[in-house]
């Protein structure tokens, strides 16, 4: 792939209504005009998107089958999610002035994933006629939680020597609170239902779950843009150049590492691109919630702003076309 087609892809992404509505919400927020949705709606749209993507993923598996080999990406994703926070923690301690606890909290976000970044990438791929394997949805679900455990472990290790209050004294996160969070359950539950009912089930509920999907995603990204912009504005003082840089280079590192990890796998180019997107994206639903509960001494303004205000916009506007182009270059040629 040459520069021209990369630019074409970037322009195509930027010209997608999904991304443009994100930019609208973001720009309006910077001009202090609030285009966010009421909270019950925002929460429901998020549930809808997870239900829909889970169901579609399940139908995809039903259609194309899922051999044992197709579970390899799942293993790769889970491993990545568990290990990447260690790299992130080291990078933050080297290239920023964040304390240990904050660094651990931030690092956990980058091991985990952003489902909306994932959805946007799926949309960009489908705009040019590409679909990935249904199992990718399971990979996304599988990558949500291991990073949380890794982050908490890092914080506990870090807290041990100095901290008077002591991390250990605090109630740890129970397995239920970490793993059985409702987004993971809904994603996997809908996947199971889609798998079970297959294309016939999809035919039933397609006008709800598939047809309006892209439009709903536009509405959601309008809201996400509004919230990201507002957060950036409000917390711009809480956050210095070091962490911001981290929020820009770490996605690239994640995508590059993942590119190597998926190289040998039996996966479509679109599937490999999506794995890179998952690696590059940072959580702003499951991980912030877990950190607030289990690591109250970390500063939420830092990790939320980085993940939602810096990395998310970066990925949506620049990262996604880049990762897809890279995947095209590396894996289309190779095969």
């Amino acid at each position: 792939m040459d520069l021209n087609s990369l630019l074409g892809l970037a322009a195509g992404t930027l010209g997608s209504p999904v991304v443009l509505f994100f930019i609208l919400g973001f720009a309006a927020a910077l001009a202090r005009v609030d285009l966010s949705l009421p909270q019950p709606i925002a929460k429901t749209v998020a549930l809808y998107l997870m239900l829909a993507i889970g169901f579609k993923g399940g139908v995809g598996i039903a259609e194309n089958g899922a051999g044992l080999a197709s579970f390899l990406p799942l293993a790769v994703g889970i491993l990545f999610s568990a290990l990447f926070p260690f790299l992130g923690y080291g990078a933050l301690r080297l290239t920023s002035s964040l304390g240990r606890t904050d660094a651990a909290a931030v690092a956990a976000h980058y091991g985990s994933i952003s489902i909306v970044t994932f959805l946007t990438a799926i949309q960009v791929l489908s705009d040019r006629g590409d679909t990935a394997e249904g199992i990718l949805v399971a990979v996304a679900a599988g990558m949500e939680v291991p990073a949380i455990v890794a982050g908490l472990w890092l914080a506990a290790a870090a807290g041990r020597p100095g901290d008077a209050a002591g991390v250990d004294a605090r109630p740890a996160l129970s397995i239920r609170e970490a793993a059985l969070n409702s987004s993971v359950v809904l994603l996997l539950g809908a996947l199971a239902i889609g798998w079970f009912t297959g294309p016939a089930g999809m035919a039933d509920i397609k006008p709800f779950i598939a047809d309006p999907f892209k439009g709903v995603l536009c509405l959601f990204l309008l809201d996400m843009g509004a919230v990201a912009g507002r957060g950036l504005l409000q917390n711009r003082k809480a956050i210095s150049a070091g962490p911001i840089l981290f929020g820009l280079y770490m996605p690239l590192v994640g995508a590059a590492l993942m590119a190597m990890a998926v190289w040998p796998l039996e996966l479509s180019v679109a599937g490999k691109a999506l794995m890179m997107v998952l690696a590059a994206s940072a959580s702003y639903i499951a991980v912030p919630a877990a950190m607030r509960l289990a690591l109250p001494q970390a500063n939420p303004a830092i990790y939320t702003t980085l993940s939602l205000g810096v990395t998310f916009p970066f990925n949506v506007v620049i990262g996604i076309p880049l990762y897809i182009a890279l995947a095209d270059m590396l894996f289309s040629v190779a095969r």
Partner: protein
Amino acid sequence: MQTHSKVRLDILIEQLAVPRLAAMLDSLRGVNGYTILPVQGGSGLNGIWTRDGQVAGAEGMMMLWCILDRHHKDTVLEAVFGFVNERAGLITVSDVKVVRADKF
């Protein structure tokens, strides 16, 4: 009409921590109930927040309202303060009167 003096706690706390706090309250002697009110937003030393647009609810807070007999005030307050103090939130204590003394 005859009324009886009781103690009212107003506890502002992150909504994510509500289930834990509720479980703690349920286990305390002297707490017969509590009521949870939604909070729309606020401002404090750690900045401003609002519920609008929130996808995850990680940022939201709730207000917990609890009527106690004054015999249990100290033990309950101590337990609740220990819980709230390590995270965002605050507690106020005030005097109220109720009609049915036996309920609390």
